[in-house]
């Protein structure tokens, strides 16, 4: 599915990256531990997280993640937004909780890591 679909499913607001909503997302991970995200080798994925510091964007940049969605309506500070803009990583924020966000996306057909590995 594309990022635009995810935005609808999660009732999310786009913080930055309106022009990147056509990006294809094949897999997602929900995680608040950046080292776990870094060990999750799935380029082109969506990260759902409750953390909003700039290192979340850095982590996404290093691991080639395609987009980040903050949960529970969290909005990052300007420095995080600026970094995301510079690195072309779209940021979204959803009012839903982590559990609900993951549940909705999975129900709509977005894969997790193990399912994705079986496919490829």
């Amino acid at each position: 599915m594309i990022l635009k679909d995810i935005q609808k499913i999660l009732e999310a607001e786009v913080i930055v990256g309106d022009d990147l909503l056509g990006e294809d997302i094949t897999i997602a991970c929900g995680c608040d531990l950046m080292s776990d995200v870094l060990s999750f080798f799935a380029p082109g994925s969506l990260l759902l997280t409750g953390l909003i510091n700039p290192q979340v964007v850095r982590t996404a940049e290093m691991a080639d993640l395609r987009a980040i969605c903050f949960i529970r309506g969290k909005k990052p500070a300007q420095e995080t937004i600026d970094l995301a803009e510079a690195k072309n990583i779209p940021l979204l924020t959803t009012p839903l909780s982590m559990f609900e966000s993951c549940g909705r996306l999975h129900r709509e057909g977005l894969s997790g890591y193990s399912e994705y590995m079986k496919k490829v």
Partner: protein
Amino acid sequence: MTPDNKISRIQELVYEIRIGEVMQKDVITINPQTNMSELRGILREKRISGAPVMDGDKMVGIISIEDFIKWLADRENDCPISEKMSKDVKTLYADEPLTHAVNKFERFGFGRFAVIDRQSRRLLGIITKGNIVEGLLKKLEIDHYKEEEVYCRRVEHFFEDILADKVVLLFQYDVAGHDFKRAGEGASRLKASLKRLGLDPQIVRRVAIATYEAEMNLVIYTEGGQIRARVEPHEIFVKVADSGPGIPDVQKVLRPGYSTAPEWIRNLGFGAGMGLNNILKCASKMDLRSEVGKGTQLYIRVDTKDGATSETN
């Protein structure tokens, strides 16, 4: 390209480009016996503002919309255009540089010039100010594409293009301790540089992740240090070094989950004792050496032929 050198590029181009390159070759010509009353229809239909007047293959003049307006204003009787055309035709040679055309347009104030061959003096085409602008823009666009192509080629074939028995590139990034906001800049810049060298994205990602984790360790636990990356065609070797405080028990920190990170670092999503483990996973080979009071050196080797082997969980 900055605006300044773009202007000088245009100045160069008006000397480089020949009139023959930008002129209109499919010229609409008019017979001298055509009546003035027919001229308006021809100009309108062909969407032109003037045309050379040809008697057989000999150019005898140029007729333009200005001549037509003058004829109308003077309320004269209908006559062949040969009576109203400008007979003193100013011409340009196809092999002259564009700057000659620019000068003539300025000097005579005409809307168009006939372009002829220097030897045969045969009509080859006509040139208007519009043709000049169009020609310059086209050339600038071609220049731009060529520049981009050359740039892409240059970096993608970087190693192949350098003639030496051994090629080694060294990058160094200085990391400040405890500056969490800027943490990761070194790894980010290294990643961008490796990408530009045209290395395999998977290899670049592995080096970037390993370097980033190591950089986070410098920021969290030390007063700062250096990241040095040595890039060779067969491997990327990253050395991350600091000057203290050093690790008392190296074996202990290699154990997954072992961490001495303060609470605030854990709250930011790091310090869970997984960093070195991640580095180990990304690296083809890793080595950690430390001495309390002196400092720590972490060596990360990523074999560029190693592909995805280490990248599977």
